[in-house]
């Protein structure tokens, strides 16, 4: 397992606006596996996502994070992206004036994944069809005036085109109705194949029924305190976090984390 591409996080500490949020996160996501990261509000889930992708406002104060053996921490966000990391944003920002098509071509070019124009447009059409995104979105501006669901689908569209080796989905399921959730989850499932690792950050176990995680981790007060299989997510759904956190808080129990 250790030879394949994977995300390895050890004792990661980070703060934002002077406040410590991550207090020593340990996490390994091997290639081809789906891992879920759960935890109550404010436990640091989104902070971990932004820190892993190199948001400048998130300051790493300790620990390490590597991807495929490359130390991530000195790298800027674009360098991490070019290594094959991808973040599905919880709240994707809008960029008025920059069309979806121009943006996607610029991103593909930056990652050395340029395609001939015709192939690009054909691929784009196919993926948009699968994700039920109207063709008119090609010439619209990135996320500008998009509904919440449209933004989420646009994120999955980018995931499908950029084909990263590790996708971090930051609450991609929040705010989606059942149909949209299924569309998005199926989109992820179709893309991932065997060579992509996925870290799903979520509040709700529902998306996990589609994505069938290999492992579930619970983050609490900036640390992974419990890890387990899919059944851990089901237990959380049934009983909430309290029984788990009550038992496992601070002990960082490792049930079957590979």
């Amino acid at each position, binding site marked *: 397992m250790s030879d394949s591409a994977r995300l390895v996080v050890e004792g990661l500490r980070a703060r934002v606006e002077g406040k410590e949020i991550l207090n020593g996160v340990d996490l390994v996501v091997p290639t081809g596996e789906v891992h879920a990261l759960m935890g109550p509000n404010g436990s640091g889930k989104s902070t971990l996502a932004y820190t892993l*992708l*190199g*948001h*400048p*406002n998130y300051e790493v104060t300790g620990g390490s994070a590597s991807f495929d053996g490359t130390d991530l921490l000195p790298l*800027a*966000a*674009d360098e*991490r*992206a*070019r290594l094959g990391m*991808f*973040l599905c*944003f919880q709240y*994707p*920002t809008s*960029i*008025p*004036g*920059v069309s979806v098509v*121009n*943006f996607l071509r*610029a*991103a593909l070019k*930056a*990652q050395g994944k340029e395609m001939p124009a015709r192939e690009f447009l054909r691929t784009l059409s196919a993926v948009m069809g699968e994700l039920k995104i109207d063709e008119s979105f090609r010439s619209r*501006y*990135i996320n500008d005036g998009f509904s919440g669901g449209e933004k989420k689908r646009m994120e999955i569209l*980018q995931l499908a085109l*950029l084909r990263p080796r590790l996708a971090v989905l930051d609450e991609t399921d929040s705010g989606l109705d059942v149909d949209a959730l299924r569309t998005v989850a199926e989109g992820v499932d179709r893309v991932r194949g065997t060579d992509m690792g996925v870290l799903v950050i979520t509040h709700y176990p529902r998306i996990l029924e589609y994505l069938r995680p290999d492992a579930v981790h619970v983050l609490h007060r900036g640390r992974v305190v419990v890890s387990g299989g899919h059944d851990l997510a089901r237990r959380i759904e049934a009983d909430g976090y309290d029984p788990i956190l009550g038992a496992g808080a601070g002990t960082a129990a490792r049930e079957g984390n590979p």
Partner: protein
Amino acid sequence: MTMAVTVEAHELTKDYKFGFHDIDVSVFRTEKGLSPEVVAAISAHKNEPEWMLKFRLKALSHFRKRVMPSWGADLSGIDFDNIYYYVKPTEEQSRSWDDVPDSIRQTFDRLGIPEAERKFLAGVSAQYDSEVVYHSIREDLDKLGVLFGDCDTGLRDHPEIFRKYFGTVIPANDNKFAALNSAVWSGGSFVYVPKGVRVDIPLQAYFRINSDNMGQFERTLIIAEEGSYVHYIEGCTAPTYSSDSLHSAVVEIIAHKDAHVRYTTIQNWSNNVYNLVTKRAVAYEGARVEWIDGNLGSKLTMKYPSIYLMGEHAHGEVLSAAFAGEGQHQDAGSKCIHVASNTTSNVVSRSISKGGGRTSYRGHIKVHEKATGVRSSVRCDALLLDEESQSDTYPYMDIDSPDVSIGHEATVSKIGDEQIFYLMSRGLSESDATALIVNGFFEPFVKELPMEYAVELNRLLAVQMEGSVG
């Protein structure tokens, strides 16, 4: 007569590809400085009628009486005594590029004008210093009665139309620089579109300053008769000299009932040009006037394209984009004066300041007392790319009628960190991300340009943006 084009590798020219100049080929120039004698010499050289000489001399006295504007920008660097007010480059105006002197033709070749003419223009006028050296118009438009030439030709060959409109939209005493232009004007464009004629592809005028210490004072008069349409494009460049040049144009547009006039400017003067321009249109019933105004070059620009909405249901549109880099001040804006009822106006301004540059939006919306059902919307957004630059907004709104819906919104900000991070998280470098966002910021302007100009503008922007990150 064959002269080599000399290219001077002046250090200021490094980002400005039009900074080269030809050696002086002029056949006539007035002495430096401004006097009634100089004005009379210009008029005599052009064999003008008496009324125009009187108009010019009166304008000169207005110019001398008027104080320099104290608002806005720093005009103290202008030395009116150190300027050539009239420089005639050739003896004849040509209708074929083959007849244009080699050095001048090569200049316009390098600027891509003949090529553009072949590809997508209905007519071209090329002014070099004080005179138009080349002009052409498509034969079919000529036959329909469309007139397109320089203003001197308009005065000479079509005095009945010319005199009826000349100086009626912008009187000689309108402001100090309009007075200056009225005294020493030369060249420019005279466009007349007869009733119902639609000029479906653009006419272009290109203005080139070549001489050092030169003042260019072209005069443009556009008359669109009832139900007609015309799109007029102007471009401009100048060599980069160590001393400053002055460009002070007057543009008058008359859009009659239901006429539609679009006037597009891509101003790319070198950074030693004072660009002080008065542009004004009147729009009668149902007419539509659009100023598409891009300001990238010059040391200082003061330009506020105006629309007087004189007839019911007239519509005015001003779409402007400004970029100010090191040592530049773009003081640009718009005026929409609602005189008649049910008139509408829409203003969108985008500006970017970088490297200590300064952009100012200065605008005026006025609704006259008797105008009802007026709607106007103004939207100004400014981006500041670094800590040295400056952005100002000076909008004036005077609403003298109750039956209106008027809105003005403005924002000033830097490029959003979240936008940069989003693009970087997709693999774009910080400078590519910045450039993409800047292009997007100007998109409302760029999308109104003919494709060839949009491409050129994005290229110019890319040059301006080089080295703006890190």
